[in-house]
């Protein structure tokens, strides 16, 4: 009880200090799968703050990916509103959402989704070509320790390396938010740690608001805040003042 009160106090303080990046109210999302309705989100209220590292924790099917997709402008809620720095995302049309993703959002996926016909550097450059204030592609690769592999094609890189290229590609546009969906889901512990280190380094050095989806509770230890989701609702929010560096994690 005491800890939850202190959490609440810290939260209040944070709220006053830091800019709100995302503000979501009453989000619901219902998919029509044939004749069955799947309620992926059942009323989610959420705020994410500038520069924070948030882990969305939950079992598969809990609705965490749906939430992330809505925040990232890939999907629209059935009801409820989302504001991104004061702009109402839920009012945007397809072209508006495309522009929003292009300018502000960096995505990292479980299966990397690199373009096989482009080298590591070119995959990153793909984004810097269309971004307003991009990093130098080589700089972005340096942040994930892959400068020496920059001329390799995806087929010549390991899974962990491919995921780090994907991270470099996501941050190269200098996004204000970095959204990662199970970034270590397809990786072993060792390479997974390297990937998580890269993500936290970006959060730390560039101040990018970062949200990581995982079902792996261990990863929650490196977050500023852990939001647990189950059955389409936020079940628990947990502040983590003593973050552990990724290198100390194991699973």
């Amino acid at each position, binding site marked *: 009880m005491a800890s939850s009160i202190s959490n609440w106090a810290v939260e209040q303080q944070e709220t006053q200090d830091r800019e709100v990046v995302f503000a979501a109210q009453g989000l619901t999302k219902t998919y029509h799968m044939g004749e069955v309705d799947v309620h992926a989100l059942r009323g989610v209220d959420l705020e994410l703050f500038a520069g924070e590292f948030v882990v969305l924790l939950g079992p598969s099917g809990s609705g965490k*990916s749906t939430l992330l*997709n809505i925040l*990232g402008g*890939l*999907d629209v809620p059935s009801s409820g509103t989302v504001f991104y720095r004061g702009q109402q995302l839920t009012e945007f049309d397809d*072209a508006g959402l*495309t*522009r929003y*993703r*292009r*300018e502000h*959002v960096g*995505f990292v*996926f*479980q*299966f990397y*989704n*690199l*373009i*096989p*016909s*482009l080298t590591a550097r*070119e995959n990153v*450059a*793909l*984004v810097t*070509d*269309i*971004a307003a204030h991009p990093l130098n592609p080589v700089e972005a690769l340096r942040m994930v320790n892959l400068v020496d592999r920059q001329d390799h*094609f*995806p*087929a010549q890189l390991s899974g962990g390396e491919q995921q780090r290229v994907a991270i470099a*590609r996501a941050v190269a*546009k200098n996004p204000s938010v970095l959204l990662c*969906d199970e970034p270590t889901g397809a990786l072993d512990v060792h390479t997974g740690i390297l990937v998580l280190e890269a993500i936290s380094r970006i959060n730390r050095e560039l101040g990018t608001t970062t949200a990581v989806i995982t079902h792996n509770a261990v990863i929650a230890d490196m977050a500023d805040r852990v939001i647990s989701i189950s059955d389409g609702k936020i079940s628990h929010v947990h502040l983590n003042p003593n973050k552990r560096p990724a290198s100390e994690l194991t699973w």
Partner: protein
Amino acid sequence: MLSSLDRKLFRDLSHMKGQSFAIAIVIAAGVATFVNSRTLLHSLELTRSTFYERYRFADVFARVKRAPDMLVDRLQEIPGVSTVESRIVKSVTLDVPGIDEPAVGQLISLPAFRPPRLNQVYLRRGRQLEPSRDDEVLASEAFLIANNIDLGDTIGAIINGRRKELRVVGVAFSPEYVFQIKPGDMLPDPHHFGILWMDHEALSNAFDMDGAFNDIAVGLARGSPVEEVILSVDRLLEPYGGLGAFPRKDQLSNLLLESDIQGLRTTGLIAPTIFLCVAAFLLNVVLTRLTSLQREQIAALKAFGYTNLQIAWHYMKFVLLITAAGGLLGTLGGMWLAHDFTKLFLRVYQYPELVFRVQPNVAVNAMLVAGGAAVLGSFGAIALAVRLPPAEAMRPEPPARYGPTLLERIGLGRLVPNVARMVLRQLERHPIKTTFSLLAISMSVAIVVVGNFIGNSVDKVIQVQFYDVERYDLSLATVEPVSIDAIRELENLPGVYQCEPRRYVASRLRVANRSRRIGIVGLPRDAALMHLKSRTGKYVALPREGMILSKKLASVLNIRAGEKVRVETLQEKRPVADVVVVDLLDDITGLNAYMDIEALNRLMREGPQVSGAMLTANPEFLPAIYKELKETPGVASVTIRQAAIDSFRNTIAKNMLHMRMINLIFAIIIALGVVYNGARISLSERTRELATLRVIGFTRREISTILLGEIGTVTLLGIPFGLLMGYWFSWILTLFLDQEVFRFPFVIANSTYGLAAATVLAASVGSALLVRRKLDHLDLIAVLKSRE
């Protein structure tokens, strides 16, 4: 009971209905062109042989000045001869109601009380000639239709200097005049040329040919040596002014028919081959993609215990179903096309009826050939997929391997933007697929070029023949050679600007053991109304001595410029001389020999004689001139240039337009098939990439560029290559169609290139847009959530 695997087959088919349809259409086009050309060829050959046989088309023909009837018995005795029919054949000027210009009638005698032994006529309407009536004729249908003449109507004819009204009592067809063309003309002109059959006695009386004939037809016993019979016939007819016997294959109408059939035979297989190659390629590409998408399904089927053969057969059925659908559609389409084309041919050929028979074996052959091409095309893809061990197939395919492109290896990589780089690397990774796509697109461009080249070529023929070579308004031929004074008379007709003489001498040209019966044309050396111009636009000057030969005639006789040819003239005193071939003329039509008219008269050991004239006149005076000529005795035929041009535009030009349309449709089918399938496969292979790019923030337009860039690049590269290919194909076609009757000049208009490029580009853009619409339904999340 449908097995589960078959059910999967039908679902796969319906899932890929767009692509399956595009391939089926290409197969249909291949089968249709095959069925069309085979059916058409068969029906033309069958129609011809049926008509020839039933109406007893002769084997040898000969014209003579005047031979006594008793000679027929001697001719009959020649070993190998089975039948002889003597006739009177005369060219007369006709005064056709409703037209100013004189027309030419070919009068042919028919025996009374019995059908002719050879070259019988088929009576479509009306009745036979009544013996003893000297004013009745049977007339060729085309002539009657063109001039709107009905049974019972009369036509004025100048017979032996006297005008006579001839009443049409029947509509007739003859195997001798399937292709009704006036000797010396390039194209049929039914307005101004008609065949008229008349009672033998009436004709004989009119031309003072009592007890004599001037034309014979000879039927041979099976297996008789034609050349020997011709020699014997010539020997017998020579004292009576024989103009040289010739075999059926040199008979004008038959020669033209044969030349068309030959053309069809050589070009008929080209189109089906192209289509079926394209279809095989498309099936290969689509099957490669399908089996790669279903890699894990194949592994699972194998794990359950399906044999390789069962799985291969499953995919082969997929191919065969598409082929069968295309084949069926193509067979029906081919029949329809053949029917349509036969009608086109009927506009030109005069057959009483066209024997159009659907041959089941053609359809079966077409299906077999299409099936063979399809199996050949897809076999590799299926074998590759089936051979994969199940454990390996269960694992996802390793990521595609790419490398820097040629452009980058030579150091120009920096110039290329990332998006273009994706496209180029994709293209370079599948060199065979890229090459074939390129070839197929080029082929569709080339088809349009070749199709239109024929049109351009014919336009050029008109230009060269009717404007550059023949520069007169009308030309006429006399029955007998006359003194040059006749030219003065013509010159003095009111409204005549220029008049130049012409002499025509029937001759046999001989070089060693090769010979050809032709007419030598004598022209004034400085003729203004007729220029000798080649199909490539080169003028050849007429020499004071010696002759100019058609290049084709020189190759037939195997003679070169500078060598001598033996000239055996067949008229008057029938002198024989060796004449130097001074130069060759690469002309468009016929086998021709030209000489200075003075040299020709010297060769004939005669004074200044002419057998025809060419003239230009004030158009306002033309009706009066025509009237005058209609009444001038001794004029055998008049040719009006404008009428020839008009007739051309009405028949050949219409057919040509029709062919162009069909070619265009075929080109569009190929372009559509290649581009649509190419884009669909790109989409299938790239869905993941494209979704990723959309997520990153690329707009729809930007990812469309990437999706369509590949096929777009192929199309843009294919077009110029196709234009080049069309150029070469057209050139090769001129070599194939280099015939004695007609030779196409090689000329391709810029508009042809423009049309070809525009057609294929439009078809490509259209099919690309169809695929692009799919991008709007790209499910970004689903794609990213799954493994490839």
